[in-house]
């Protein structure tokens, strides 16, 4: 650790050494983190680095002849935009092309595969009670799938495939309305040792699908169901296609162990994606597995409790309801109590896939089905020369700033330049680290914004320096001058930075896309400005005030009382202001 030796004096004015050490440690830690993470440059936006362009084509669904219209296309653009720009800082662009294509541009360095899944998923979500369930091969033929006898003995995770009413652990967000239902019963449910999984395991043991007592499934559907081979990808995708949500259907779903397939006959949908208010990925406390928690809207909760109260009286497998996402059963938990506000989708999620699903569910279903027409790389929209020119110009501008500061502030400019360097280093490392963590991507406007931020940062110490000089002009010696100037300067800095931060916060919360990315940059640089002035510039100034060079008001220190036109501290004679400051002897104040 590069702790400066000089700053260890514990004296009255705020222990300057400590803050300096603190900020240096922070810098070293950030830089170290940057190199450890292997990303040493910030992620660049699509305008600077290029990326991948995905062309999606809307497909006509049978039974929805006129679905492809500008309205639906625009809705789809908005939803896809929300999905790929979940955090608003990743700089992806979405636009329509022609009357049935959507182009999605994703910047380099983002997870392309993930993005493709995100944009293509329709996210049609239905909750359908289960009528029949069977292993996923066509029933008449002997199975060709790898579902061997060992599979059924696989210890099934008891806690998966359970819908629990999660009114309790809501990740620390205090909700104003107490959720009335389900706390106690959810406990009961968790302890209920009859998960549907074990039933499925029994089913696999040669038993044909249990024929339900009153069979609401039509003969045709039954026939389709018998033929359905869930191990075949095409057949899986085709299962239940074109069937309206208000009719019974067939579907495939991964069995809870994630290795084999089950097939289902499902009753008409009781709820759909519109009833879901919000979805979040979370780790289930009991099992440590990733799940997706859905919260229902008011209407949704009511429907959901109606359904679950009906289902809990049924026998297995009809006490299950299937959560069907894009025609595939995501999970089919069995119900043993009435549930209302929340449902949980469990399955073989990892953190990423759970988050993706939650993201997709939160933003709703696409009104159209799309398929990928082409995926291709695109070159930067602006070309590298723009960034280069911007950086060179910015560097020249910075050099000019440094020259100006040196000429005007002389010795003080050392403090200013050091502060600027610290601030630049912090900004750079944080932006770089945010690339992999929240997909923050720097675009050209953001680069320009960062260059403007130089001015805002420099302003903070200009305000401070001018205050100090005013105090020196009052005839004070440097140390008291610094300590007196600081509270006033601090107030000005905080008030004005608060305005900037307010702008950033409001824009970040309200807007989407590029504006949100900008707001993020603005907020970050404003915060860093405050941090640097408080923890670096001020302590450094305090330290410097003790140095003879500054304290004695050396003419190159930028604090020469004579040059500042200070009044002599004790004598009150009439003194002509020096016409021009020629070489004056350093004056002991």
């Amino acid at each position, binding site marked *: 650790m590069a702790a400066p030796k000089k700053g260890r004096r514990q004296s009255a004015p705020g222990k300057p050494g400590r803050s300096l050490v603190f900020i240096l440690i922070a810098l070293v830690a950030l830089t170290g983190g940057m190199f450890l993470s292997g990303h040493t440059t910030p992620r660049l936006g699509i305008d600077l680095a*290029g990326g991948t*362009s995905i062309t999606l084509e809307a497909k006509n669904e049978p039974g929805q002849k006129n679905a492809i219209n500008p309205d639906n296309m625009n809705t789809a653009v*908005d939803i896809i*935009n929300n999905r790929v720009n979940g955090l608003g800082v990743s700089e992806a662009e*979405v*636009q329509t*092309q022609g*009357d049935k294509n959507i182009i999605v*541009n994703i910047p380099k360095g983002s997870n392309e595969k993930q993005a493709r899944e995100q944009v293509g998923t329709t996210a049609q979500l239905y909750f359908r009670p289960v009528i029949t369930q069977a292993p996923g091969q066509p029933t008449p033929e002997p199975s060709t799938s790898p579902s061997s006898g060992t599979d059924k003995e696989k210890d099934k995770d008891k806690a998966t495939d359970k819908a629990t009413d999660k009114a309790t652990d809501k990740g620390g967000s205090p909700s104003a309305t107490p959720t009335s239902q389900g706390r106690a019963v959810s406990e009961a449910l968790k302890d209920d040792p009859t998960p549907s999984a074990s039933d499925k395991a029994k089913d696999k043991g040669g038993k044909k699908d249990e024929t339900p007592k009153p069979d609401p499934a039509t003969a045709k559907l039954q026939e389709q169901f018998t033929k359905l081979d869930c191990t075949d990808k095409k057949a899986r995708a085709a299962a239940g296609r074109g069937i309206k949500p208000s009719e019974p259907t067939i579907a495939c779903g991964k069995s809870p162990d994630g290795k084999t397939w089950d097939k289902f006959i499902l009753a008409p949908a009781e709820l759909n994606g519109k009833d879901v208010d919000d979805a979040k990925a979370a780790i289930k406390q009991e099992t440590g597995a990733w799940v997706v928690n859905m919260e229902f809207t008011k209407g949704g909760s009511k429907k959901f409790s109606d359904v679950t109260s009906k289902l809990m009286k049924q026998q297995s497998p009809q006490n299950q309801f299937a959560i069907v996402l894009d025609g595939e059963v995501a999970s089919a938990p069995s119900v043993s109590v009435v549930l209302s506000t929340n449902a949980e989708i469990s399955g073989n999620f990892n953190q990423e896939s759970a988050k993706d699903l939650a993201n997709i569910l939160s933003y709703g279903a696409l009104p159209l089905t799309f398929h990928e027409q082409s995926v*291709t790389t*695109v*070159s*930067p*929209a*602006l070309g590298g*020369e*723009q960034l280069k*020119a911007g950086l060179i*110009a910015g560097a*020249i501008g910075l050099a000019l*700033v440094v020259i100006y500061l040196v*000429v005007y502030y002389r010795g003080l400019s050392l403090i200013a330049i050091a502060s600027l360097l610290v601030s630049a280093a912090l900004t750079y490392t944080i932006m770089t680290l945010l690339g992999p963590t929240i997909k923050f991507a720097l675009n*050209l*406007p953001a680069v*320009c914004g960062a260059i*403007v931020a*130089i*001015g805002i940062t*420099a*302003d903070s110490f*200009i*305000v401070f320096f*001018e205050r100090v000089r*005013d105090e020196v*002009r*009052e005839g004070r010696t440097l140390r008291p001058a610094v300590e*007196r100037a600081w509270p*006033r300067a601090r107030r*000005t800095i905080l*008030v*004005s930075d*608060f*305005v*900037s931060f*307010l702008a950033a916060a*409001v*824009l970040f919360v*309200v*807007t*989407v*896309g*590029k*504006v949100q990315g*900008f*707001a993020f940059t*603005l907020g970050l640089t404003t915060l860093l400005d405050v941090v640097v002035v408080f923890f670096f510039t001020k302590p450094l100034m305090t330290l410097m005030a003790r140095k003879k060079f500054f304290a004695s008001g050396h003419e190159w220190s930028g604090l020469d009382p004579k*040059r*500042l036109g*200070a009044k002599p501290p004790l004598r009150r004679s009439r003194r002509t202001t020096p016409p*021009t400051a020629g070489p004056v002897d350093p004056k002991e104040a």
Partner: protein
Amino acid sequence: MSKLGNLGARLYRGEVGYDFVGKRKIWYGISILITITAIVGLAVRGLNMGIEFEGGAVFNTPKTSVSVSQAEESAEKASGHDAIVQKLGDDKLRIQIAGVDIKKSDQIKKSLAEDLDVKAGDIDADLVGPSWGDQIANKAWQGLAIFMVLVVIYLAIAFEWRMALAALIALIHDITITVGVYALVGFEVTPGTVIGLLTILGYSLYDTVVVFDSLKEQSKDITKQTKYTYSELANRSINGTLVRSINTTVVALLPVAGLLFIGGGALGAGMLNDISLSLFVGLAAGAYSSIFIATPLVADFKEREPQMKALKKRVLAKRAAAAAKGESAEAPESYADEEPEDDAVPGDAAPAVVGPRSQPASRNRGRGRPSGKRR
């Protein structure tokens, strides 16, 4: 430069200074002129919205050996609009041009085909929608509106409603001028421009707040003294923070000027030019308005207060009395009759009494002379 420190000191003590508040009518006039020009420019020429907002045509070419920048040139030549050219994976080009409809696209196709040395039939033309759609635009407006309301509330609490109002007027002034310059220059408005504008919005307020902060401090105990009217104090606080304002503006503008003149000049038109132009104009307007517009406006608003009117009466009465006594004090003109003093201050100023700093540093045994030597 060496004189600057000294000048700073004299500004600080109010020995020299420019009569910003007294001459405010001139600056208001100038601002109104510029603003009108900007609005006329907007009305007549309108804003040239880029493809990101308007949508436009997209041309996908087959494989070609032409470079991106060459293609950009020929596309701009063919259409007369800015074009965004990207290379797709295998040396194909995607050329997006704003403000083009299908009718025009055939001739653009032809000229592109000639330039790029491909068959016109092989170029796919299609319409593209805006990538900066209504949703983004609407949310941006919504965010702006919420921010404006909040910032006015905040300033009204932190300072007072008059300052909040003045800051808002200055802000609108800055944005109008910047947008107007855009319309006059005829640059295409891109997302970069919008972001530039938002940056200005933050900066303009920021700068105004710094000046207001000093004004608030100076006028804390204003009613307890009879030396200065509010306008005179406002003027002193502008002059007192003048050095900081100049320095900050220089420091903020230098890098942007670098972007505009060096970066933009070397490259010709481009995103960089767009952003840096809006930033340069906006930052300059922001710095100007916080000194010449916002603070004089506050003084204008304040002088209407009965309290301040009474103060002004007292101050003038005192000065009249002093003048009647035959003291050599030349009472500075009141700002009501708009004729600022121009009396030369003798070069030697007696040192001021060190008073508590919450009050303006007095000098010359209490003869206030805000309008002093001109620089």
